[in-house]
């Protein structure tokens, strides 16, 4: 680990568990809930946020000394909006179906609070390299939750993973369906995303008592 000192690895690993942006810092919930009915969409969303947050943190950190603090929010929003336009155009070019499915939620990465939160809390006070690591770490922490929720919702809701029928075919009654298993269509509806995240928080906090609120 010549490249990363102990402090730097902490920057990446902390947000994955004990300082997770979604379950602990309560940032970036909106997109986490709306697009997780399918695993594929969750993965694409995680990668998009990883890109925007990683690059955005570096850019903000590079120009942090020239931004007048009064208009910094507009400057930050402009940087994010520019990056999100890149993501949106790339998605439209290479994964058109998926970008239709994500619809406005790609645009809503702009107001994803994780991004503004990390700009304000970290990139404005730290150098580019450390900001980059912080961005990657937080985006990964966000992605982990998104992928867990997407995994369960797609598996239990439609019996598939990434579109592959892992539990057998519901119409021809193969695999699990042969034993009378049924898909729980309720998992595909949006309220279940909230409840799944609530359960993740429950599991995480019962494993780590220090996180419990009073």
């Amino acid at each position: 680990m010549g490249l990363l000192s102990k402090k730097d690895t902490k920057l990446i690993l902390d947000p994955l568990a004990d300082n997770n942006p979604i379950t602990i810092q309560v940032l970036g919930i909106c997109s986490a809930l709306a697009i997780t009915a399918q695993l594929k969409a969750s993965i694409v969303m995680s990668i998009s946020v990883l890109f925007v947050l990683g690059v955005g943190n570096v850019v903000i950190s590079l120009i942090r000394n020239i931004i007048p603090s009064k208009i910094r929010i507009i400057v930050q929003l402009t940087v994010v909006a520019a990056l999100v336009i890149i993501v949106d155009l790339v998605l439209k070019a290479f994964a058109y179906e998926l970008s239709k499915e994500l619809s406005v939620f790609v645009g809503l990465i702009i107001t994803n609070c994780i991004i503004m939160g990390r700009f304000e809390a970290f990139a404005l006070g730290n150098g580019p390299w450390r900001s980059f690591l912080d961005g990657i770490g937080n985006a990964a922490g966000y992605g982990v939750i998104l992928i867990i929720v997407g995994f369960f919702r797609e598996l239990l809701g439609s019996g598939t993973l990434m579109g592959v029928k892992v539990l057998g075919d519901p119409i021809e009654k193969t695999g699990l369906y042969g034993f009378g298993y049924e898909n729980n269509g309720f998992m595909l509806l949006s309220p279940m995303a909230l409840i799944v995240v609530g359960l993740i928080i429950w599991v995480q906090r019962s494993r780590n008592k220090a996180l419990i609120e009073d």
Partner: protein
Amino acid sequence: MEYLELFFKSIFIDNMVFATFLGMCSYLAVSKKVSTAVGLGAAVIFVLLVTVPLNWLLDQYILRPGALAWLGEDFAAYDLSFLSFIMFIATIATMVQLVEIIVEKFSPSLYNSLGIFLPLIAVNCAILGGSLFMQSREIATLGLATVYGLGSGIGWFLAILAIAAIREKIRYSNVPAPLRGLGITFIITGLMAIGFMSFGGMLTGGDEEVKETAKEVALQLPQTEKIENNETKTLN
């Protein structure tokens, strides 16, 4: 009628919080007390009411494909829609800042109760989401866009008011320790969202059914009664 329909649709059926999960961050962070929740909710209504029509004008006359035709025929071929994210967010951020300055100048008491929430609102997904949905649902007129903004704002206000009231009470309940605070709020919101889903058929469901049965009847009945049916249809 169209206005009223869109108004109720944006409050209940397409509720910002429960149907599309927009503005969740501030919804969760500022819902510990009813009084602050009311302040933020009012600010959201106001900003949505201003920015949605403004962005509608922007979309209609600058951004959408062929929107620049009013400048002359040479401009009709331009398609600036890829700029809409950056234009919308710039409008929102400037409007929020402007509103903050105006309120501070003319009504210090309102500023004291509402002012602290205004910077929060620039990065509230509900505001940008309102404009983006306005664009993707192709709302037709400026009046409808205003109604849509107002309705969405009121929907958001209702949601945060309800959850704040529940959270004030739930402090006295015996919630399992790891679920306290954030966890239980998530689950309650989920249950409320299930409740709100029942509004889904309020405006569209019944109407469609009537049309279908009318068609079936028309196929079975002889000529004379068919005409009657058509008359009732036109009346509908």
